């Protein structure tokens, strides 16, 4: 089954032994082995060649992608699945710049990642040398931390520190830039460095938890507002225990989906721009929002001034800098999320009336699947697929209408079941993310859900899929248009359909087959069940090319800049 967070690294300590001279590159590889790294997604090139020279014979499994962006997205997904830093590697210059979108993706969604880039030799840095780019400077706004390894003797300690920073507290990407001369230098440095488990975050202050508990006891309409920080902190079980203990209705952000199983009695659904109407209405009516690891993102809140207008806020977050950033917190709990949630709401509040009201909202605004026509109805297709796959289902989404349909309609048993580019919204994420997820969880039923726009952004990774015989399933929802942009042009730009028509797409089934990936096309609704059976019963990889209606829209929708109370519906 799926690898879960915080498994201890094997204790590979050869520090006490006299250190034999080795190159900086070999020292890096040995350090990565010692830290328990198993997989690296990467692509070789000039400045990183010493590290590739040191890879053969190591315990590291290198996955050769076909574009560095694919390496970064795959490492991101690996990090989301395992809770340990996904590792990607590229050469200097264009290799490094191609990683940036993936690094930014990890930063926006607080995903543990270590990105290793080759760099030109130290003496050439700053001279505009061939393939020299200041990747340290370019990535500063989108990394949690970064380091240029100037001294080979520092490699074990600095690399271990990079993993500690990436994985602890609020996770994020850390960049390691390695000049070629440092990689080639010979040094007799010991492999002595810190190892997991990293120190736990500080426990939250007892007084802040008491304040919060007093607010919960007084509240008449409390609501849990669950974000991605819960799973990043390894607090899913604790949250589920809290939900069982306190029986407070809950909504989730895009990144918080799966923290409570979709079918949980007190779980209403996703809030926000494409959230469920019941979820948004419950938020607007609530008198206490208990925000767990969420950050009041604009896609979740809609117009901030009118978001949850009657609610006090308890904000629980591992990152002190998130408190009050967008919404004032009446009580703030920072530090270890697990401890915070363990101590929250020791008694069940008396809110039966509110729970009943929320349950009625949920029934009244339940999603329906009786769309007219005989074409494939994507929401129903995705819902059936996720239910048929069961608890092993993992969706690796691309970005667009299909991404929102997955969030709205699929069943998620755990947060790792939903890998999606939330903060960055990066088209091209789905296919490499599916590969990374499948590498992290070989037995999971990983399904990349993509669109005809998104798939083309990293379609070269079909070659990676084929090379490693990765049993990833791909559902490609093809409406021959950039659907979400087209939808916005229809609704907010007076139907001025500008540059969204993808009528000249290739035949995707033929493209997949050219890469050696089995593929078939689905065009009719009555083919849905057979298609799902074929997808789930294929041992290897398969691409289902699903043609859908280009006029289909994502509903409901909160217009940009409007209150979440003003949802547009079909």
């Amino acid at each position: 089954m799926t690898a879960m967070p915080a498994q201890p690294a094997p204790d590979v300590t050869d520090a006490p032994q006299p250190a034999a001279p080795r190159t900086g590159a070999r020292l890096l590889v040995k350090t990565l082995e010692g830290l328990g790294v198993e997989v690296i997604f990467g692509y070789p090139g000039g400045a990183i060649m010493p590290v590739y020279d040191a890879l053969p014979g190591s315990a590291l499994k290198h996955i050769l992608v076909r574009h560095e962006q694919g390496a970064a997205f795959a490492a991101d997904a690996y990090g989301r699945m395992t809770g340990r830093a996904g590792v990607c590697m590229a050469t200097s210059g264009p290799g490094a710049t191609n990683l940036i979108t993936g690094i930014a993706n990890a930063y926006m969604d607080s995903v543990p990642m270590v990105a290793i880039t080759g760099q030109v030799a130290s003496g050439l840095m700053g001279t505009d040398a061939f393939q020299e780019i200041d990747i340290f400077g370019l990535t500063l706004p989108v990394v949690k931390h970064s380091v240029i390894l100037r001294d080979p003797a520092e490699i074990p300690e600095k690399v271990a520190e990079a993993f500690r920073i990436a994985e602890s507290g609020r996770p994020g990407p850390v960049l390691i830039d390695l000049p070629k001369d440092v990689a080639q230098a010979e040094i007799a440095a010991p492999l002595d460095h810190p190892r997991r488990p990293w120190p736990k975050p500080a426990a939250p202050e007892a007084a802040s938890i008491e304040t919060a508990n007093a607010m919960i006891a007084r509240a008449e309409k409390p609501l849990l507002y669950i974000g991605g920080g819960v799973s990043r902190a390894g607090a899913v079980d604790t949250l589920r225990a809290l939900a069982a203990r306190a029986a407070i209705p809950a909504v989730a952000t895009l990144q918080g989906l799966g923290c409570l199983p979709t079918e949980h009695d007190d779980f209403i659904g996703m809030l926000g721009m494409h959230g469920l109407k019941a979820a948004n209405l419950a938020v607007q009516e609530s008198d206490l929002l208990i925000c767990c690891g969420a950050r009041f993102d604009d896609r979740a809140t809609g117009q901030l001034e009118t978001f949850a207008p009657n609610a006090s806020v308890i904000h629980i977050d591992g990152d002190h800098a998130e408190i009050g950033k967008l919404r004032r917190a009446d009580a703030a709990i920072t530090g270890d999320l697990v401890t915070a949630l363990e101590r929250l709401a020791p008694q069940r509040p008396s809110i039966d009336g509110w729970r009943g009201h929320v349950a009625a909202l949920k029934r009244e605004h339940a999603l329906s699947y009786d769309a007219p026509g005989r074409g494939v109805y994507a929401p129903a297709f995705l819902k059936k697929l996720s239910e048929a796959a069961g608890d092993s289902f993992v969706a690796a989404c691309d970005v667009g209408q299909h991404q929102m349909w997955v969030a709205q309609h699929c069943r998620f048993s755990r947060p790792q079941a939903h890998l999606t580019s939330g903060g960055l919204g990066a088209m091209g994420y789905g296919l490499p993310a599916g590969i990374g997820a499948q590498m992290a969880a070989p037995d999971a039923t990983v399904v990349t859900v993509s669109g005809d726009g998104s798939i083309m952004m990293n379609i070269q990774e079909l070659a990676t899929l084929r090379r490693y015989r990765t049993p990833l399933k791909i559902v490609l929802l093809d409406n021959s248009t950039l659907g979400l942009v087209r939808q916005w042009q229809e609704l907010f730009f007076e139907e001025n359909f500008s540059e969204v028509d993808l009528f000249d797409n290739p035949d995707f089934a033929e493209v997949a087959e050219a890469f050696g990936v089995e593929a078939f096309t689905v065009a009719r609704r009555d083919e849905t069940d057979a298609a799902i059976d074929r997808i789930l019963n294929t041992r290897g990889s398969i691409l289902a090319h699903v043609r859908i209606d280009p006029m289909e829209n994502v509903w409901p929708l909160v217009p940009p800049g409007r209150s979440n109370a003003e949802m547009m519906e079909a």
Partner: protein
Amino acid sequence: MDHMLHIELDHAEGAVRRVLGVVEGRGFEIRSISMDAVQAEAASMMLCVHGRGPGRDPDILKRQIARLYGVRRVGPDQLATARSGETRT
């Protein structure tokens, strides 16, 4: 309105531009900078910053700087320059 920030940070490669990048990136204009001579391991900066448009809270900015690795302390007090080796706030 101008705000003064006093920042103590490890003397490490990229530390200064990392701090300045956060200030600019979070919507503040840097009106003045001064920096003491770098000691062996630490540096001390004084920044005068000004929010670009409404809603830019200097207290949030301080916390966003404080969470950077290598930043030891962020505060408004110049007296803090006399103290060294404190953990980050």
